[in-house]
């Protein structure tokens, strides 16, 4: 039995589409119910529906063998996992954003205040990559507000289309990382259940390649 942890929401649906296209029966997980564990004994699959930020935790501890989760969550949680496939969907970027007037001048502000839902990514980017001390202000949503009303100079957040930013007079100042959905695997499961997990990963990779080919050179 393989346990797969999915991030509740759109990501879960896309992951199930892909699994089905790759030849796995996911009807158990398609049931519209409030159940959190959906098991299909015949297919040897068990799905758990979790909050995205919890998916890496389930997988690191081995409560789930495999997980599908955004790279943003992986970077923020910093867990010890195998990160095996980039699924491509849910694509966006993790960015430092702020008033466009700060473009190119970010390094001139000492000890700046940075608001973010992602305090760990923020810390590792400013302290690790840029070697700079900042004050991190953890927020839970509508992070764009922070620079507008003077709570912080800049924010670190994911940017998809950039519309929210532009409507609020903000702009991308620096790109930290490319984000998309990833397949993660527990380090022990990869060894102990290799006979089930490896073929599944191969099937997913093959299906992704097929889809990419069908889309043609658009990408």
């Amino acid at each position, binding site marked *: 039995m393989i346990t797969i942890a999915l991030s509740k929401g759109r990501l879960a649906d896309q992951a199930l589409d892909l699994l089905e296209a790759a030849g796995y029966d996911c009807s158990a997980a398609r049931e519209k119910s409030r159940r959190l564990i959906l098991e299909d004994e015949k297919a040897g699959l068990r799905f758990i529906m979790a909050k995205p930020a919890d998916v890496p935790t389930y997988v*690191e501890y*081995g409560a789930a063998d495999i997980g599908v989760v955004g790279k943003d969550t992986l970077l923020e949680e910093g867990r010890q996992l195998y*990160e095996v496939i*980039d699924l491509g969907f849910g694509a966006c970027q993790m960015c430092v954003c702020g008033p466009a007037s700060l473009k190119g001048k970010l390094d001139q502000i000492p000890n700046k205040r940075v608001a973010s839902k992602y305090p760990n990514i923020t810390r590792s980017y400013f302290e690790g990559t840029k070697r700079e001390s900042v004050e991190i202000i953890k927020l839970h949503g509508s992070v764009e507000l922070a620079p507008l009303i003077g709570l912080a100079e800049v924010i670190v957040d994911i940017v998809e289309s950039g519309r929210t930013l532009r409507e609020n007079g903000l702009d991308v100042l620096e790109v930290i990382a490319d984000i998309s959905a990833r397949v993660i*695997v527990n380090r*022990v499961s990869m*060894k102990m259940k*290799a006979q089930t997990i490896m073929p599944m990963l191969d099937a997913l990779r093959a299906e992704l390649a097929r889809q990419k080919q069908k889309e043609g050179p658009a990408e």
Partner: protein
Amino acid sequence: MGRRFRMGNYRFHTPDGVSDMLPEECRTKRELEQKLRTLFSLSGYQEIETPGIEFFDVFASGDFVSQENLYKLCDQEGRILSLRYDGTVPAARLAATLFKDTPPPLRLSYVENMYRFRESGGGRQREFCQAGIELLGLSSTQADAEVIALAISSALEIGVTDLQISIGQSEFFKGLMEEWNIPAEDAGEISRHIDQKDTVALEKAADRYGLSSAAKETLLLIPALFGTYDTLEIFDNRVENPRSKEALRNVREILDILDDYGYTKYVTVDLGMLRSLDYYTGMIFKGFTYEVGFPIISGGRYDRVVSVFGRDLAAVGFSLSLNLCMTALRRQDKEFAQVPIDTVIGYSDKPGMRRLALSMAKDLRSEGLITLVDCEGMNEEDLRLFAESRDIEQMVFLDDEDCGCEEEDEK
């Protein structure tokens, strides 16, 4: 922020990451410890005990342990102390100080609690028991294999039979980085990507350094392949540099020796296992079993550890987490033995009966039978009920000097 407790309200609780051990579990743990001590000792590894509290510098100076992971205290002189983080570093300190005149090789073992400040969850505790060995002063492949074999024997000895050992080699990767002229700091990042099997990031890195397509292919194969001799051969055909070739030869010979031990079926090669590259200087291995999400065994060659303390001594060793193994055994439904009491003895208030009861208990205990003597002044009927309620096999009630030795069997 957090819930506010008044002073004294923690008195019913234990801190995060530590736990009480109840009789059944404790007894099982002692048995497992004993099995491991016997195994280590029969294999020529002498047990040592190092202090639970060391100077912070002992663990921090080699740059192998990050300070965030150490429990820190202060002594009366204002010096920073640290709780024992692992078994290797204190053994290395001993080898370079108290054992400095002892000719190598040194074979040392330990069974002790370790303390890690940040570790918690998933069966991992902040205080946990590790059993391990250090083989110091030998740099041969035979020594590498001896340590891995003893790790396998240890797991089997305590009942972990669904065992999978993965062997890697840090020198293989380091040689490749030299061959491809990749500077050390970037190599660190690449090794992390390999260790996480993050092929997306690896491909980007390969393009960034302008690796040839053959080199890129090799890089991407590292996290993808695990097997035995076949894996080694594939890489042997793909690398040129002597450092990587030597690493592959080392692993091949380890496999040969482990086959002589009869342990081939437990072993696979995974050259993508690249944790703590600053620490390991040769083969690396980890042990896995079902039902725990973390490795139960961790080991390898770390030749630089003793030199931090001023003695140039090769070092190879492993540690096994007893707590994780017990969690695994429990989840794999390998029941822990109950703690049976064999006999309970009661006595009447007639003269001499107590003396008789006590000497009888002494005799029974010397035969290895777990024996209780009543301390509540129970009469015969109460004692019988007590014995029944506790599943005690045999009860003896002494009422009369003449019949004192007649035992009343419960059954």
